Structures are given as C-alpha cells and as structure tokens.
C-alpha cells in the first residue's frame, strides 16, 4: 500500500523537516532484580536520524526503548531528549508490537486519543495518509493486524512527534504486510523528518529502514554501523546483501572463516 503524496503536500511537509530531536543516552544501567539488562550504555542519536536497534531476544533493546519513552527508569545514567525550537517539551510517541488500540473506540476516535476534539480534521488527514480513511467508523476488532498497526501509526503521527519510538511494531505481521508497512514508515519519516528509533530482531528490516544500525549484546553496544545505501533501498542489491550478511554474522557470532569450512 504505497502512500503517494502530491507535490504540494511534500513541499508543505518539507517545511517541517526540522522536527527531529537528538537523543543522548549516557552511562545508562538498568537491572531487573539480579539481572543486568543494560550496563553503562552510551549512544548519541543526532536529530532526524533513523536508528535501528537489533539484538537477540532479551538483549535489552526493548528496555532501552522503553526507558527513552519514560516507561522504565534507569538505575544509573541519564537519557536526554533534545529540545526543539519553539517547543518546551519534545513530543515522544511509542508504537508497540501490539497495536494497543482501544477496542471500545472506533478507528477515528482511537487516532484522536489524547488529542483535542477540534483537531479532528488533522486526525482524518493522517488516517488517510496511512490509507484507512474509509475505515474511520469501524471497530478495531474488524481490522486486520496490519490495518491495526497502521491505525496505531496514525495515532502516533497525529501528534506530529519529534521522536518516534518503534518497539518491534511489525513483529507480528506477515511478510508482505510488513514490507508495505516498512515503505509506509520510511515515506512518512522522510517527509516529516522526525527522529526514529526502531527496535527489531529482523536485520533486513533494520537495514532497509535505518541510517544506522546498533547491535546490543551483553548490555552494551556490540556494533554501530552506518548504513550507506542510497534510498529507496532494494533488498536484492549486492551492497544490501553484503551488509546484511555482516550484521547477521555478528549477531550470530560466527566468523566468516568458520563458515567457509562448511
């Protein structure tokens, strides 16, 4: 479901391109009881960057994202989300793995959660942007998984966030819907210019969306790789495949030499 923007819309959106804020994670340590999840974790994210955070299950990537969102409090260290000109407090939104739509609100009222009623036109516009304008009056229960995530995306976008945190939002979708959603997220990110942090276990997803991929291992940054592939990216390209192999190899901790012996 590629989203098309008219040229006028793109122009209007481009004027807001400086919406992103920087994120500084310094010396952050988080532990749940005995188990240390993150230890002296340091990452700087410049404004407007799309960062993907990958790692095995339980490596602390979701915890990192949740602490940036303020849903977890680190035992040590600081997380600061930069200020934007003219705004007191940067707007941070989270998209979860499950859509977390309120089942008792129809689609449009879900998008308008926490929004002033007067901004209904704005909500309708964003809903149209994710391609669900005609489902505005339906119950979430009647939507497919992919459609629900699109509503959740619209709900986050309607606040015009400075920082969008994506906690494996496409993890439970089928392969085709996932690629559609990746395109949608990329298009909207490019037109709006917010800072994005995507947590995913799918290396190919990370590489097709992000400017930079960070691998977390043992509570620290194990790999911090800039993705130098021009957009729009094609998964089949040699550069893409080589990079994917490298990151995946690092995640699985196998050295190329060992693999050659097989």
């Amino acid at each position, binding site marked *: 479901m590629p989203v098309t923007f008219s040229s006028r819309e793109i122009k209007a959106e481009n004027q807001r391109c400086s919406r992103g804020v920087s994120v500084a994670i310094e010396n952050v340590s988080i532990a749940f009881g005995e188990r240390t999840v993150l230890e002296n974790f340091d990452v700087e994210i410049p404004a407007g960057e799309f960062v993907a955070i990958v790692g095995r299950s339980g490596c602390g990537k979701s915890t990192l994202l949740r602490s940036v*969102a*303020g*849903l977890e409090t680190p035992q040590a260290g600081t997380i600061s989300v930069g200020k934007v000109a003219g705004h007191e407090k940067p707007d*941070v*939104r*989270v998209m*979860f793995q*499950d859509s*977390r739509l*309120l*089942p*008792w*609100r*129809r689609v449009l009222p879900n998008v308008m*959660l*926490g929004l002033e009623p007067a901004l209904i036109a704005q909500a309708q516009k964003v809903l149209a942007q994710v391609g669900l304008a005609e489902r505005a009056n*339906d*119950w*979430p*229960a*009647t939507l497919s998984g992919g459609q629900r995530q699109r509503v959740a995306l619209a*709900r986050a976008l309607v606040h015009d966030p400075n920082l969008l945190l994506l906690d494996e939002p496409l993890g439970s979708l089928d392969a085709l819907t996932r690629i559609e959603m990746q395109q949608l997220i990329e298009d909207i990110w490019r037109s709006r210019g917010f800072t994005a942090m995507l947590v995913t276990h799918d290396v190919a997803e990370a590489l097709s969306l992000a400017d930079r991929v960070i691998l977390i291992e043992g509570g620290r940054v194990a790999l911090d790789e800039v993705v130098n592939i021009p957009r729009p990216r094609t998964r089949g390209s040699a550069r893409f495949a080589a990079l994917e192999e490298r990151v995946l190899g690092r995640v699985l901790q196998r050295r190329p030499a060992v693999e050659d012996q097989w």
Partner: protein
Amino acid sequence: MNQDQKSAMKTQLQRGNLAKRALPWVVPILLLIVWQWASSAGVLPSRFLPSPRAVVHSFIELSASGELWTHVRVSTLRALSGFVVGGGLGLLLGLLTGSLRWAETLLDTTIQMGRNIPPLALIPLVILWFGIDESAKLFLVSLGVFFPVYINTFHGIRSVDRGLLEMGRTYGLSGWSLYREIILPGALPSILVGVRFSLGLMWVILIVAETISARSGIGYMTMNAREFMQTDVMVVGILLYAILGKLADLLAKGLERYWLRWNPAYETAR
C-alpha cells in the same frame, strides 16, 4: 395430534431456517400438550396441578380485576429498588477496592467473609430487625445483589489490559481521563457479567422473602392462594416469576449488546 406433529415436522424440515427457530419450542409445547391431556383425562387432579386452560383462565381473571398488576408492580418495585441499592453499593465498593490498594487491604477480606453467608440464612434475624416491612425485603435483595456486582467489578478493574494502561499514559491520560477512557470500559464486560448474575439472584431472593413474609407482591399472592387451594393462582404466580426473570435477563443482554458492541464476542450489527 400425531398426524399434526408429523406434518409440522415435515414443513420444518423443508424450511431449515424456520426449523432452527422453532426447535427450542418443541419440548415446551409438547410438555404443555401432555399436561393439558393429563388434566382433562383426569390423570392429574386439579388440586395437585391445574390444567393449562385453568391457568390461562385464572391469569385473565386476575389481570382483569387488576389484582395481578398490583402484585407485579409491588414485586418489581421491590426487586428493582433492592437491585439499585445493592448493585450500586457493590459497584462503588468494587471500583474503590479495584482501584486503590489500601482500600482492598482494608475492605476485601471483610467482604469476602460476608460473601460466604447466604443472604437467605439471615431471614430469621431480618424478620426480628425489620418485621415483615418493606425494609426487610429491600435489605435481603440488596445484600444478595451486592456480592456478584462487587466481585465482578473488582475483578474487572484488576484485569484491565496493562498494555492499554501503559499506552494511555504515553498519550497523556492520567487520573480521571485514564479512568474514563480505559479502566471503566475495560472493566465493563466483567461488571455486566455481575449485573446479569445479580438480576437472576434478585428474583430468587425476592421470591423467598415474599413467600415467607409479605402482605403484597407475587410471593404473597402465591402463598395466599395456597391457603385456599387455588392451584391455578399459584401456577400463575410461579410463571410470572419465570417471565419477569426472563425479562430481567433480556434487559441485561440488551445492555451488553449496546455497551459491548465493540466486542466481537457480543456479535451485533455494527
């Protein structure tokens, strides 16, 4: 009669949809037919059970004289006021203990102990306290209705999806807005289960209370009829309870269908 049934069955089979709708009524109608036959054949003496025809006759007579409606009104009023008082208290306390930890610690143990006393076991004490006044019935019904509403409200609040609460907070909801948008609607399915359960219980308790001590109401009418061996009036009273119980259930179902129309488990037209 056999012939009739056979032909009826045949048309039912031909129209599958009609058969499906008629099927639940086959057994009750059959029972009614057997009952009427047993009465008119003299197998069933009318001092044990009147014939269906006599019941219908007595129903018409009682409703024409207005006596029936007086009793129905009195009983319904008692049932509903007990439901409002007991259910309202149950809802309020359930919301309180469900939402606030200290309220749960303070009250829940006491309420759980009280729950194990059947309200009807209190009848001797209640008669002692209130006589056979209206307040006795109100007290018993309220008490009985209180617990199902309380327990299901408490449980409903506690089982609200944590993920939705977290999401709501990231969207700036807190305090009353979080309560209104997420906690209350999330607890509503469970609360309505409690309401439905207590609407059933409401009639059961009222029947017993009215049968034991009352000067009006359906239970009184039924007990009074026993003195004069008017089995037809007794059956009318019993059937009235069945109808009123069913109406209360339909009301609860209607509320569920309206309030929970977002929930695919309560399928209705969108």
